[in-house]
């Protein structure tokens, strides 16, 4: 007989970790949306490329460096997206840029599939093996703990960046009044590159952290498995709120894990997705601007 503590703790532990990783991607989506009002559908592939970067670099480099390569791969993908696609289209309607980001994802996924020759699963190595501790008879792995810690560190870092640094303030300013930002002598192109680079790095970090939870990953998994969850998390949080994206990601992870653990998947397949949709509808009905959003 499982205790009440176990029933409650298990989805929280599992959901916290997977939701935190999704939250990282959601933050990237929010940063890009705040700065350029673009829904970035290439964000999922920043995750996949981060996973591939780590996987491939692990053959040649110590794992610690491979992790950095994974994050850097995501960052470079973000920078290239800004420089080669978003900036040349900056005077076009936002929907054109949105479609262009979809095209980027659709261009990257076949390249990944060619690399893997078929829908092959690649083993994903955790940063630290084994379990860290046990709570209500639920094992908490080091990987799960590291993901949550990463979310806390990234959250604190972003809070410091946006509130305490000139560059962070300039980034916020550019999302509020682009013309006035230019009149301060701030170059919007550089801010845009910074934002896309950060979004890419966050995606790359999620690509390093998330696959070990499922022990493997496959080509395009960032788009098929992570992107919709990240968009949902961002909308839950308010789409323009960075803390909201974190909260949205964690809430989404816990709801999904709760549904997975407590609903019989044979009788009711897809229960986690339905539960997330239900929570999304409830949040948007009660609070249309999302949990922490300020604008509709």
């Amino acid at each position, binding site marked *: 007989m499982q205790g009440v503590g176990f029933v409650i703790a298990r989805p929280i532990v599992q959901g916290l970790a997977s939701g935190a990783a999704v939250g990282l991607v959601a933050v990237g989506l929010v940063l890009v949306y705040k700065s350029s009002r673009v829904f970035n559908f290439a964000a999922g592939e920043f995750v996949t490329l981060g996973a591939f970067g780590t996987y491939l670099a692990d053959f040649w480099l110590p794992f610690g460096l491979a992790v950095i390569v994974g994050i850097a791969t995501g960052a470079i993908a973000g920078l290239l997206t800004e420089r080669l696609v978003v900036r040349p289209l900056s005077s076009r309607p936002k929907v054109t840029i949105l479609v262009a980001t979809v095209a980027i994802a659709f261009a990257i996924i076949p390249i990944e599939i060619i690399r893997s020759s078929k829908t092959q699963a690649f083993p994903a190595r955790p940063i630290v093996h084994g379990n860290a501790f046990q709570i209500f008879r639920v094992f908490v792995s080091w990987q799960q703990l590291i993901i949550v810690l990463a979310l806390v560190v990234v959250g604190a870092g972003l809070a410091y960046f946006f509130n305490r640094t*000139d560059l962070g*303030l300039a980034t916020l*300013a550019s999302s509020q*009044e682009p013309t*006035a930002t230019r*009149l*301060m*002598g*701030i170059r919007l192109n550089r801010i845009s590159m910074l934002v896309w680079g950060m979004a890419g790095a966050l995606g790359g970090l999620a690509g390093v952290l998330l696959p070990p939870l499922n022990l493997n990953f496959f080509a395009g998994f960032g788009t098929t498995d992570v992107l919709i969850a990240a968009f949902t998390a961002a909308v839950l949080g308010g789409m323009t709120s960075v803390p909201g994206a974190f909260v949205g990601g964690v809430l989404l992870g816990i709801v999904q894990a709760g549904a997975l653990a407590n609903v019989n998947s044979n009788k009711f397949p897809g229960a986690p997705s339905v539960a997330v949709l239900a929570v999304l509808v409830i949040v948007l009905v009660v609070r249309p601007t999302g949990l922490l959003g300020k604008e509709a």
Partner: protein
Amino acid sequence: MAYLEVRGLRVGYGAIPVLQGIDFDVEEGKTTVLLGLNGAGKTTTVATIAGLLKPSAGTITFDGQRIEGRDPAQLVERGVALVPEGRRTFPSLTIAQNLRLGSWTKRQRRQELQATEARVYEYFPVLEERRDQLAGTMSGGEQQMLAIGRAMMSLPRLMLIDEASLGLSPRLAKTVFSIVDKINDDGVTVIIVEQNVGVLRHADNALVMEKGAIVYQGSGEELRKGDELRKTYLGAAS
């Protein structure tokens, strides 16, 4: 040579021409008022000087150097600051953060900036009282003060102020322009864009624009005192 020299300036939005090849001079250390009705091309003129618009023809020379078509970032570094129409403060940032961004291009000159910030607070005490308040929660007059204070933080040599009195009560507008006088007394050359002829009492020189052309260029006092001149150039607006 004048401090600011504009020659044959032509600017348009797409295929629609707005400035039809204008010429004017601005003297160093003076306040020049640019008057005209809606659509005359006043905002286009200052936006082009500040680098927001690129001219199709003509030259702008500031302190002996050609600046037309340059990026706003380069112009702010050279000492050109525009207080834009509609204030355009950063609503979700505090007053202190707005001012800090005003000094973006001069971040290395910390000591000088502290003195400038103190001068902004001296001119606009309400900004110091509310330095931690979000700009978006302030009244229109306070936001105008913030927009001017933010421009001061870039240590400008030429300050362009677009429609500062728009939406302000006459009393508040008078307060704002008396501060602009002080900024001018500090040695900053000022160009004020206005529709309200009352601003002429603050002007050394005046320019009147009509349909993208300069139709009057002369002393502010002459225009202010000359009823016929005002009626001729500004019509009902006078």
